[in-house]
């Protein structure tokens, strides 16, 4: 199994979600990390607070947000969650809005998720990868893109 598919625990992927604000999108990404056993609810609050404090810098590429917060006791295990949005939302990022794909990221520390992010970077360096994710209608299609 790829590191990405391993990081995306069962129950951590939601396709075609309906949200109306960036905060709802980030909270849903957080809820999926909680329900798949990777974080506690406090981590969701921390992700939202980080964006309130520092702005929409988690929108790292056109259409793609990767909300995250510092490693803390709220992180039970390194993991990710993935949402594709039925309707794009604005995060307030001048260059990369609107967002259609949201990856929640939780890390236990500063080191143990580096290979995972390297795999992530390899995928998203491919032009059109965000659109490939958006065209998936089933979790199995998403997982095969990450293999």
């Amino acid at each position, binding site marked *: 199994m790829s590191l990405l598919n391993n990081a995306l625990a069962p129950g951590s992927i939601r396709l075609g979600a309906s949200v109306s604000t960036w905060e709802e999108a980030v909270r849903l990404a957080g809820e999926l990390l909680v329900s798949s056993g990777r974080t506690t609810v406090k981590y969701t609050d921390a992700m939202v607070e*980080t964006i309130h*404090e*520092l*702005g*929409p*810098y*988690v929108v*790292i*590429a*056109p259409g793609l947000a*990767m909300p*995250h*917060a*510092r*490693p803390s006791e709220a992180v039970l295990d390194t993991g990710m969650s993935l949402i594709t949005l039925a309707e794009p939302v604005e995060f307030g*990022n*001048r*260059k*990369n809005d609107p967002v259609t794909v949201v990856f929640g*990221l939780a*890390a236990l520390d*500063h080191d143990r*998720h*580096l290979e995972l*992010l*390297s795999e*992530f*970077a390899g995928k*998203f*360096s491919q032009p059109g990868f965000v659109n490939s994710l958006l065209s998936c209608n089933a979790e199995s299609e998403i997982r095969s893109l990450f293999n």
Partner: protein
Amino acid sequence: MKIVAVCGAGIGTSVLLKMNAEKVLRTLGLTATVEAADIETARASRDAQILLATPEIVDKLQGLPSEVISIEHVFDLGEISEKLSRAML
């Protein structure tokens, strides 16, 4: 030469920036140490020649002795390459 990629938490955006900066440096044939750090760590260490960050974070890095480069698209190796080579060459 030391380059520090900076983000709010030091685990996500900054790590991706660091990886892509290292890729670009290899392609350009340039040598530098690249680290990832959160804003507080980057502000406290002050020993980097170049700081890389997304635009929202750049505002929080003013007043340091390093050159601060703003990267808008973390996966755009062209943008990183152009801006890094302008700063280093």
